[in-house]
C-alpha cells in the first residue's frame, strides 16, 4: 500500500500546483490579450491616418467576422482536445459547390442547403475517422482538407474563382448590409458566438466536449458517449466554416478557392491559442475566441495598412503563433498520464 500510494500522491499534488498556477495565469492571459488589443487599437488610431476611416473599419470588421467564425469552429474542436485543419478547405469548397449549383440553375437557397449538407457529410466522415478509426485529429483533418480541396478544384469547379449569380441581393446583404448601423457579418458573428456560448455552457453535449478534452478515459468510464460527441464537434466546426464562407462569399460576391493555400488556417489557430484556449483541451471558451479575434484582426489590419509585405506579415504572425504555443505549453502542461498519443 505504501509504495503504490506514494508516487501517485506525488504526481497528483505536483500537477495540482501547476494546474492552479495555470488557471490563475490563464485568467490574466485573457486579460493581457484584451489589454494588448486595446493598446494596439489606440496605437493604430493615433499613428495610422486611414485606420479610423469608415472604409477601413468596415474592411476590418468583415475580416474579423470571418476569422472569428472560423475560430469559433476551431475552438469547439480544440476544447475537445482535437484540431480541425480542414476548416478553410471546407469553407471554400462548400460555398463553391453552392455557387456552381446555383449557376447550373438550382435556386440559390436550395444550393446553399446542399452546400451545408456536403459540409455535414464531410464532417461526419472526418469525425468517424477520428473517433472510431482513431486516426489522430491532426492527420485526419489534414488529409480530409486535401481531399476536399482536390475535389473542389478537380470535380466541382474548374476555376479557382466562382462568382455568385446576379440578382441575389438578399444573399449579398449578408456580407454588405447592416442592421441598426452594425454590419450584418458582425451580427452573424455575434449570434453564432452567443449560440455556441449557450451550447458549450448550457447543454449536456457542450459539457461533454469539455469533459472529453479534460480526460477522455474518465469521460468514457463516466458513461459519456465519447465517440458521438467527437463527431458532433467536427459537425459544429464544419457548420461554422460554412457560415464563415457565406459571409465571405456575400461580401465579395464570389468564392476564391485559392484561399485554401493561404495561411488563413494558421491565423485561426493563432486566434484560438492566443485567446487562451489551451491545446491540452478542456479549457477556455467563447470569450477567449472574442479577445483573440479582436487582437489578431487588429494586427492583420494594421500590418496591411502599414504596407508590410505578405512575407513579413507571415513572419510576424508565425512568430506570434510560436510564442503563443510556448506560453500555452508552459501554462497548460500536458499530463503524461492522461495525454494520448496522436493528438497535437
Amino acid at each position: 500500500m505504501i509504495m503504490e500510494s506514494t508516487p501517485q500522491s506525488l504526481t497528483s499534488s505536483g500537477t495540482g500546483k501547476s494546474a492552479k498556477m495555470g488557471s490563475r495565469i490563464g485568467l490574466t492571459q485573457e486579460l493581457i490579450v484584451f489589454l494588448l488589443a486595446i493598446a494596439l487599437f489606440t496605437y493604430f488610431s493615433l499613428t495610422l491616418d486611414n485606420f479610423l476611416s469608415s472604409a477601413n473599419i468596415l474592411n476590418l470588421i468583415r475580416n474579423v467576422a470571418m476569422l472569428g467564425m472560423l475560430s469559433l469552429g476551431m475552438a469547439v474542436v480544440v476544447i475537445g482536445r482535437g484540431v480541425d485543419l480542414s476548416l478553410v478547405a471546407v469553407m471554400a469548397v462548400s460555398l463553391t459547390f453552392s455557387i456552381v449549383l446555383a449557376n447550373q440553375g438550382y435556386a440559390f437557397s436550395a444550393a446553399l442547403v446542399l452546400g451545408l449538407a456536403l459540409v455535414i457529410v464531410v464532417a461526419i466522415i472526418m469525425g468517424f475517422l477520428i473517433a472510431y478509426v482513431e486516426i489522430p485529429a491532426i492527420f485526419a483533418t489534414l488529409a480530409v482538407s486535401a481531399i476536399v480541396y482536390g475535389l473542389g478544384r478537380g470535380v466541382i469547379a474548374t476555376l479557382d474563382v466562382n462568382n455568385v449569380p446576379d440578382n441575389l441581393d438578399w444573399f449579398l446583404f449578408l456580407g454588405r448590409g447592416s442592421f441598426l448601423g452594425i454590419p450584418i457579418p458582425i451580427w452573424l458573428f455575434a449570434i453564432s458566438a452567443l449560440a455556441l456560448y449557450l451550447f458549450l455552457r448550457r447543454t449536456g453535449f457542450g459539457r461533454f466536449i469539455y469533459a472529453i478534452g479534460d480526460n477522455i478515459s474518465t469521460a468514457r468510464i463516466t458513461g459519456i458517449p465519447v465517440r458521438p460527441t467527437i463527431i458532433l464537434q467536427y459537425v459544429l466546426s464544419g457548420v461554422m466554416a460554412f457560415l464563415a464562407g457565406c459571409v465571405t462569399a456575400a461580401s465579395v460576391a464570389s468564392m476564391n478557392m485559392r484561399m485554401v493555400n493561404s495561411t488563413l488556417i494558421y491565423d485561426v489557430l493563432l486566434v484560438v491559442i492566443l485567446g487562451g484556449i489551451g491545446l491540452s483541451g478542456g479549457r477556455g471558451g467563447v470569450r477567449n475566441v472574442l479577445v483573440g479575434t479582436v487582437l489578431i484582426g487588429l494586427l492583420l489590419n494594421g500590418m496591411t495598412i502599414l504596407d508590410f509585405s505578405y512575407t513579413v506579415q507571415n513572419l510576424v504572425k508565425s512568430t506570434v503563433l510560436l510564442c503563443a504555443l510556448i506560453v500555452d505549453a508552459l501554462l497548460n502542461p500536458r499530463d503524461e498520464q492522461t495525454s494520448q498519443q496522436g493528438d497535437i
Partner: protein
Amino acid sequence: MTPIVELQGATKEFRGNPAFADVDFQLQAGEIHALLGENGAGKSTLTKIIAGVYPLSRGKMFINGQEEKLATPAEGLAKGIAMVYQENSLVPSMSVAQNIYLGKEKPLNRLRGIYISAQQFLQSLNFHVDPSAIVGSLGAAQKQMVEIARAVHHKAKVIIFDEPTATLTPEEKSYFFKLIKKLKDEGVSIIFISHALEEALMVADRITILRDGRLVASDKATAFDRQKIIQAMVGRTLTDEIYSGGSRMRAPRKRGAKVLSVENLSMGNMVRNTSFSLYAGQVTGIFGLVGSGRTETLKVVCGVLKRDFFHGGEVKIDGKPKRYLVPAPAVRDGVVYVTEERKAEGFFETMSIAENIYMGQLGGQSFGGFNIVSMKQARFVAEEWRKRLNVRAIDPEAKVIELSGGNQQKVVIAKALVQKPKIVIFDEPTRGVDVGAIAEIHDFINQLADQNIAVAVISSYLPEILSLSDRILIARQGKIVEEMDRRIATEETIMYAAVH
C-alpha cells in the same frame, strides 16, 4: 566474501512517505535471491534503487564493496546491474538482434552483421530464438529470453527480474528456471520478485521478505517453508486498529438476488476462462496479487476493456446476457466502475467538485447530452453528495486536483454513485487515501450494501478485504479460483489460495 550488492540502512521516501525504511540487504555473487512480499511491500522500489532508477533517500549502497550513488539506469548498467521489468522493455517492431544490440550499435551498423553475431551469441546461451524474428511476434517466454540475452550482452553481473513468471505458461516457466540456473553457474547474481512461493522455494538460494516497507526476514531458502513465508508476509502490526472492526464484528449479510453472473470469461492472457457471480445487498471482496487479472476481469464486465468479438464467454446482468463494448451502456444498466487510477481515469482535473459530480449525473442518463445544464442544479446535487460523503474542501469551487487524495477519491465515488447504480465495482478504493478517509469510505461501502446494492471491492490489502467483505473471491492467474466464507477466512488462508 564481499557481497556484490549491499544496502545498509537503506530508506526511500516519496515526499516523506517511506516506500521502505532501514533495509539491510545483501546479494552474494552467483546466488539466486528471491524477494517476496505483498503488493506494495516495497519490493519493486527496492530493486529499482539497486538498478539505479531512483536514488536512495538515506542509507548507503555498496557495489563490490565500493560505495556507489547511481542516478540513472544507464549508470547501473555500466556497473553491471541490469533490470528486466514487469512490462517488457523491448522495442516490439524491431528484430531480436536489433533489440539485443540496442544502444550498443557500431557506428556503421550492418543488419546482416548483427544477425550473424546475434545468432552466435544466442547459441552460446543456448537460446533457440531466431535473431531476425520481430519481437512483437514472439511469445512471452521468448521475449523474456531476449531481455535476458540483452542483459547478458551488456555484461551484467546482476540481473533483476520483476515478476518474471507472471505471464509465462508452465513449460515456459520451467525453461526460465533452467535458464537462470545456467546464468548462476556462469557467476551472474539474480534477484527475482515473485508471488509464486513454490518457485522461490524451489529455485532460490536465499529468500528475503518485505512487509510494509520493512525487511522482516532474510535467510537461506532451506530455512523457509510455505507456511513460514506466508506468516512473514502477512504478519501485521500497522493500521490494525482501522481494520479490526468491520464485518468481523457482525454476521455476514444474506445474499440477495443474483445480479451479475459471469461465465467462462476470457480476454487475451489476462483473463482466462473465469466464472463468478455477484449478489445484491452484499459486499464481495476480490483479492488477487499482481497479474491475477482481477482488475481486467471486472473492467471487461463493465465495458471499460473491450473483448474480441468471437470468444470470451458470457456476462449476464439480472439474467440477461450483455456484451458492453464501451462503458456508456453499462452505466445506463446500472453497472459502474470506480477506478484504481483516479488521476488517469477517475476525475476531470480542470473541473470543480460540483461539475465532476454533475458530469456523472449527465453521463449516466440516456440522451444526457440533450439536457439543458443548470449550474444551480449541479451545485444542489453536488452539495448533497458532498455532505453524504463528507468531502472536505476549503473552497467549494476548488478544482478536484487541488484536493487531498482521500477527498479526490470521495469525489470519484460520488461521481459514480450519482448514476444510481445497481452494481458498484470499487477497484482499490482506498489506495493513496489517508487513514481517516479510509474509515469513512469503508463505512460508505457498507451503507451501499445495506441499501441492497451489489458491491464488489477489489483490493490487494488483506485487512481491507477481511473487514469489508461478506464473501471473498480469490483471483489467481487470470481466474477466480476460490470462494471463501469470510467467517472462516484468515489472512493466511487467503494468501495461501492467491499464491501459486
